[in-house]
């Protein structure tokens, strides 16, 4: 265990002279306004009128974006836990940013699920009054709720002035639980899908594993992107080791993702003519094939992996570029995962069946309203995070 002790700046409010956060704050506000408009539309017209999800594909873009945000948050918490609880100094050097980012992106995720669920208030009431403990969604609420509280405690601890040795011990324990609960939350999210009798593509251990690994990879990628933005693509040398370590996590994560893809797709193909086969084929040469080959494999696997491999994770700018490309690609990964499993119809699309299909698959494309709620999540993340960068001291000072 390292003897590293970190010390955070004494003043909570500290205006960052850098102008780097300002454009992102403005973009965040614009996206929030767009999302706010869509929220009003949903409140006045109802979900069904605004969203493009259907009886056949009940979960669409918003669930995908929810997964994107919350899994990235738990990935960040995992990396933070490595720094706090397990003494990996390189990660604790950016612990403030990790905690703020994980907290804010979790909130962004909650906007998506809050706007997706028809009665979010009722959810909170009946999850307490009559919870169904066999339902994975209950545990999703429990784990992500606890994760939010843990991150809030971490926020308090990293910003607490005049930190004592006891605070650092507390931070270790809290960091460990953030890591642990994060892994449970994300793997349970795989179970939310894996428990659906009708959707064989989601069954098995694959998604729970894949979501945890891709979440940690996303956490590393996002940290590299944000640091590049904040430091104007010229990250200070003192953070080179941290960026290099994050690059290695990301490279290893992508390699594991590719490994899991290989066996998931191959095993799904051999279930022909089952629904898992249909879902896999929807990805390989069906309606999601562009997303899959270009987005999931090209942007989230091949290109960032090549960048990391060729630069040996030493060039921080290249890592930032790899991070951006990965985070764009990861959106397709999440979207495809959610949608592909639902495309096989539950009965043949014959006259009178009520089901419409093209080439044996039902269809879904997000509505403008869903994209605007997607913007709401991004707006909240960009606005809150870069406001924190502008007005809070997110530099983690250290001494040994």
């Amino acid at each position, binding site marked *: 265990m390292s003897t590293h002790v970190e010390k955070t700046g004494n003043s909570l409010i500290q205006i960052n002279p850098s102008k780097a956060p300002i454009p992102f704050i403005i973009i965040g506000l614009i996206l929030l306004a767009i999302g706010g408009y869509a929220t009003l539309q949903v409140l006045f017209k109802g979900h069904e009128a605004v969203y493009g999800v259907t009886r056949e594909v009940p979960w669409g873009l918003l669930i995908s974006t929810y997964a994107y945000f919350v899994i990235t948050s738990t990935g960040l918490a995992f990396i933070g836990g490595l720094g706090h609880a397990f003494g990996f100094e390189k990660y604790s050097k950016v612990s403030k940013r990790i905690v703020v980012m994980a907290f804010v992106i979790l909130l962004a995720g909650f906007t998506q699920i809050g706007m997706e*669920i028809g009665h979010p208030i009722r959810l909170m009431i009946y999850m307490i009054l009559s919870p*169904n403990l066999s339902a994975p969604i209950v545990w999703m609420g429990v784990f992500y709720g606890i994760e939010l509280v843990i991150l809030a405690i971490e926020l308090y601890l990293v910003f607490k002035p005049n930190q004592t040795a006891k605070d650092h011990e507390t931070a270790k324990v809290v960091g460990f639980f953030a890591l642990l609960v994060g892994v449970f939350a994300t793997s349970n999210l795989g179970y939310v899908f894996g*428990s659906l*009798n009708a959707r064989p593509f989601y069954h098995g251990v694959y998604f729970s594993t894949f979501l945890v690994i891709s979440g940690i990879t996303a956490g590393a990628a996002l940290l590299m992107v944000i640091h590049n933005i904040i430091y104007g693509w010229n990250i200070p040398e003192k953070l080179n080791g941290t960026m290099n370590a994050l690059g290695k996590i990301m490279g290893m994560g992508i390699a594991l993702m590719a490994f899991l893809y290989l066996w998931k797709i191959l095993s799904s193909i051999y279930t022909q003519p089952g629904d898992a086969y249909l879902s896999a084929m929807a990805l390989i040469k069906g309606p999601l094939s562009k997303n899959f080959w270009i987005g999931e494999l090209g942007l989230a696997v091949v290109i960032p992996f090549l960048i990391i491999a060729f630069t040996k994770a030493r060039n921080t700018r290249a890592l930032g570029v790899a991070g951006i490309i990965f985070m764009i690609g990861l959106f397709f990964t999440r979207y495809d995962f959610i949608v592909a499993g639902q495309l096989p119809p*539950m009965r043949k699309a014959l006259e*009178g069946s009520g089901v419409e299909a093209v080439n044996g698959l039902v269809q879904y494309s997000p509505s403008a309203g869903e994209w605007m709620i997607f913007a709401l999540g991004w707006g909240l993340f960009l606005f809150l995070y870069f406001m924190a960068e502008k007005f809070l001291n997110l530099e983690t000072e250290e001494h040994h």
Partner: protein
Amino acid sequence: MNEKRYAIVLDTKKCINCKACTVACRAENHVPHEEGAYRIWVTALELQGKFPDLHQDYEPSQCQHCQNTPCESVCPTRATYKSPEGVVLVDYDKCILCKACMTACPYNARFVHEHHKAIDKCTFCYHRLPEGREPACVETCPTKVRVFGDLNDPNSQVSKLLDTNRYYRLKEDRNTNPRLYYIIK
């Protein structure tokens, strides 16, 4: 203890695809005329044979009221529940519209009811049963495709039909143990 166990036995060879059952269901249960909003349906199966000896079957269907209920097990608030007679019902007031039950149902039997702001599905017309009335789809069918009754009563028509006929159930491989039985003739 309530010992009733309700089921529907269907003789699809009698179906003439008049869709009276779908109309009766819609009227009885105030199912809105909106896209994707229906509790029951009648699928025209593929044409069989060669011209001029063509043959077509129809397959009326609805919620299967599964004994192993995939929709119930994923419902976080227990909005979906089973009555003592095994009828799968939705408590509109508890439904949060997370739609997990819709994605879990292998029969695509559920939909969002825009007026109730909750998930809706076939209830075997549960509200009519205390009056001794059959579900609307059963009552209205001119050729008596559907027979409704208690599987625990050996003298019920459904029990007799299942005793004397071969039958299949939809997607038995999903281990849902459905309560809709289709007679094979």
